[in-house]
Each structure stands twice: as structure tokens, then as C-alpha cells.
């Protein structure tokens, strides 16, 4: 269990965007860029060069959120000590406003699969994840936020609902949560549950950050809609509506626009952040 004094999420309750190097110049030249930026931790684990120089520069002007995509917190094996050390180093020198990772696994037998893979929600998974989160928080010396996944299938063996599972992880480890509203919508569509019901059951008081992103539409073998979390387009209207539903209940939060493939020109990304600002402006104070 993490000491309360290390609770250190310092992101402003305002819109941010996922940082892409092609936007570097525009972000610095723009009169009103965004309130904060998020980076993928693994892209800044080289020894030097332009990526780290840009990050140092941006961190002087913007709160930075470090979002890991490679720790494999849900992995059956132990956490990779080298990767944990790299994370500790990055968080140590950057002192970011927030640090988050995923409820997922991505490494098996030292193979990194470059995807966020799903977990059964069982007592055994719960115990393992809590142990890993304890280890991460102790190593990097601060609280982390844990993000809910996009689900394309369910495990027969699961005995916990996802909101209850996340609530229990947060209770046992003292970690915070990152609520990806698009992921909730994608999972709810794919697995036929109510996204509002998910939010009603979800511990919103633990949320340190919200993610929004675009998804692709497909269907499964039986013609059932199958949404795929692609981060390659605008956020759809039903997801914006679900954000309103969340913010009405949670109050203002830090809202991130994720756009990782087919990255648009800066003004299009900025317009999505404006839309998030409008949603935040509607929240009763």
C-alpha cells in the first residue's frame, strides 16, 4: 500500500493531447497550444538525441504525463527489471505530472508483442497485478494510474466485473485509475453491456485522468458489431456523450485526446482538444 504523501498526480483539469514529434514546432509556435501533453514512456528510453531533447524542452513549458505501454503489468511472469529501471530513470529526471500504465499484458517469455493483451478477471490475476503495482510504485517512488482496456472478447473463467476489479486493485495498492471512455464504449459495444451502467459501477473518485480516442468499426463471425480501438480518427459522438455522463458525476478531470495512427495536422488535433474543453466547461462547478 502506497504512502498517501506520494499521491502526486499534478495534471490540470483541462484538455491535453498525446504528443507527436511532427507537431513539435506548431506546439511551440501556437499562441494557445494545449494545457498538457502525454508521451509514451518507451519512446523516450533511448540514450539521447532529438526525442530526449524535445522532451526536455517541452517539459519546461508543459505538464507532462508519462504513459507506459510496455511494462506488461498483467504478465504471468515477473516484471522486467531492466524495463522497470528505465522507467524509474525517466520518471526520476522528468518528474512528470502523472504516470500511468495498462490493465493488460504484452510480454511473454521475453517476447514483447507490442499490443495490450487481455486478462481474465480472477482472484489469481488480482493478486498478481497488485503485487506488480506495489513493485512499480515502490520502485518509481510515486503513485501510478491504471487504465481500463478495450475488450474484444471475454474470459469464461472471469469472476469479477471490470469496474469491481479495478476498484479492488485501487483499494489494495493505493494506485489511481485512468478512465478511457472510448475503451468503455468499445468494450460495452463488443460485449453487450451498458456503458452508463459501467460508469455507475466504476470508482470515479479514483480517476486521475480520462482518455478519449477514435475507434474503427468491424463485425464478428455472427454479424455482431466489433469496435476496434485504433486511435486513428476523431472521437465519435456517442463517446463524447459518455464523457458528459462521466464528467457530470466526477466533476472536472484532465482529459486527453489520443491520436496515434494516421496522425492529423495540428489544427485537427487541437479542435478535438477544444471539444474536450467545451465538455469541461459544461461541468457544473
Amino acid at each position, binding site marked *: 500500500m502506497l504512502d498517501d504523501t506520494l499521491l502526486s498526480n499534478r495534471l490540470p483539469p483541462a484538455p491535453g493531447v498525446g504528443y507527436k514529434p511532427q507537431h513539435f514546432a506548431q506546439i511551440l509556435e501556437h499562441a494557445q497550444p494545449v494545457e498538457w501533453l502525454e508521451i509514451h514512456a518507451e519512446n523516450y528510453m533511448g540514450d539521447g538525441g532529438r526525442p530526449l531533447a524535445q522532451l526536455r524542452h517541452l517539459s519546461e513549458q508543459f505538464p507532462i504525463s508519462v504513459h507506459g505501454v510496455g511494462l506488461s503489468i498483467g504478465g504471468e511472469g515477473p516484471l522486467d527489471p531492466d*524495463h522497470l529501471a528505465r522507467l524509474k530513470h525517466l520518471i526520476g529526471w522528468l518528474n512528470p505530472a502523472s504516470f500511468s500504465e495498462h490493465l493488460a499484458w504484452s510480454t511473454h517469455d521475453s*517476447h*514483447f508483442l507490442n499490443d495490450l*493483451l487481455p486478462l481474465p478477471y480472477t482472484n489469481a490475476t488480482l493478486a498478481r497485478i497488485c503485487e506488480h503495482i506495489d513493485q512499480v510504485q515502490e520502485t518509481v517512488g510515486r503513485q501510478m494510474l491504471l487504465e481500463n482496456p478495450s475488450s*474484444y*472478447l471475454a474470459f*469464461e473463467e472471469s469472476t469479477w466485473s471490470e469496474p469491481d476489479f479495478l476498484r479492488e486493485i485501487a483499494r489494495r495498492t493505493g494506485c489511481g485509475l485512468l478512465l478511457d471512455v472510448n475503451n468503455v464504449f468499445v468494450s460495452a459495444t463488443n460485449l453487450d453491456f451498458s456503458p452508463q451502467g459501467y460508469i455507475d459501477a466504476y470508482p470515479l473518485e479514483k480517476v486521475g485522468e480520462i482518455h478519449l480516442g477514435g475507434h474503427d468499426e468491424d463485425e464478428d*463471425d455472427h454479424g455482431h458489431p466489433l469496435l476496434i480501438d485504433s486511435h486513428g480518427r476523431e472521437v465519435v459522438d456517442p463517446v463524447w456523450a459518455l464523457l458528459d455522463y462521466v464528467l457530470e458525476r466526477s466533476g472536472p478531470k484532465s482529459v486527453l485526446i489520443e491520436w496515434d495512427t494516421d496522425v492529423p495536422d495540428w489544427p485537427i488535433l487541437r479542435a478535438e482538444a477544444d471539444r474536450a474543453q467545451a465538455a469541461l466547461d459544461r461541468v457544473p462547478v
Partner: protein
Amino acid sequence: MSVSQAIFHTALLDPTAAIPEGLLDADAHPAGRRFSVYRNNVAVSLTEAMHQAFPVITKLLGAQNMDGLSGIFLRQHPPSSPLMMFYGEEFPGFMAGMEQLSHIGYLPDVARLELALRRSYHAADSEPASADALAVPPEDIMRARLGFVPSMQVLHSDWPIYSIWRFNTEDGAPKPGPGAEDVLITRVEYDPAPHLLPAGGAHWIAGLQAGQTIGDAFEETAAQFPEFDLGATLALLLQGGAITSVTIERLAT
């Protein structure tokens, strides 16, 4: 039915493997095609990483052939770390072992050049020695030892890999002729660039990296490459900011 990550992992990388039991859709049917989302995510994301990592190989082979080759490579050599910036270290050796590619013998060395450019891009920053660091009496020059910046990379190839790389990245670059080429990669500020070294250049720099003096390495290199041009090689290193230190051993008096 419990689905271990070992079973999941095997089925992810082998498209002919059965989809693990115990994975369900919304109506509790077997997951079927839904599992393919993960298979597809893994294969597509790693294939894209290969395209980004090896743009000249992709151009030489064509995007479709590169997709096919990446599909085989990523299953034999999945990333061994989450640092995707270094993915593909085994690709030159993998291509060298592909019989279907044996008629394009230069591909592995061009891939080594692309890997070296990426290593240079992510190498630690360092302060090069000043431009006049080598402005010393000629007899001292030959006794000097050099330190190099981490972003410097050197390659020797039996193929004209610099010319091939340039022909495929630069408009109007001359068509590659036959012959071996040595390449020096230097990074001025943040942009690595390859340069053609004089014949023997890679051999001479390797000698210095092993701790030899400029003179000793020169003698050894000139014995093997009589045409080796020391002045031109030193000029490339200095212009590229590749030298961090010049140490001259004083003779005991």
C-alpha cells in the same frame, strides 16, 4: 477453462494454431474472429515498425514484399524488449539466411546501415572536441589516440552500400557502381548522416577504437589498403563532430 498466457502467446503468433478455448463473445459463443483482432494488432504493428525501421529495404523490395518478409521475421524474431526503436537487430542476419533473397546479396548490409543510422539517432549526446584539437605538430599527430562520440557508427561492406543508400534516398543521386564501400555515420546535432569513407577507413577507425595511435593504425591499414587516405578520413571525422578527445602521449625525456 483457464487460458494461460503461454497458450494465448502461441496462438497469437501462429495463425494456423487453434483459437484458445475459454475465450467468448458477447453471447458466450467461442470468440472466433474476435481473437484475430489481437493477432492482427500484433502482426500489423510489428510490420509497420519494420517499414519505419528499414525504409530503404522497403523501397528496394517493394512494400508488399516487405510485408511478407516482415510477417516471417516477426514470428521468428518477436521484439525482445518494449523499446521498439531498436527492433530489427536480427533482420540483416535473417535476410542473409533467406535463400529467396540470395540473388540480392547487398540487402543485409543495407539493413545494417539502416540499423546503424537508428542507433546513431538514439545515441547519447556528447560534446565534440574543438575543430583545432588536431592542430598539433605532425610528429605528435601520429602519436595521438582519439576518443569518439557515441553517435558515431562505422560499417564496412563488400557492396556499395553507401551508393545504394544514397540512390534510394536522394533525388538525382548517381547510380551505384560495383565495389566495396566503407561508411561513416556522424550526427551533427540530432540528424545522423552517412558519409563515404576512403578505402580502409573502417579498418583504420576500428584500430583507433581498439586503442591504437593514429600512426600505428595507419601503418597497419596502409599495409592492407595502400591507397588509404588518412587526411580525408580525419577531415570527415572532424567535420562530423565525431571526435571527443585527442590524447598525445609524450615521449619520456
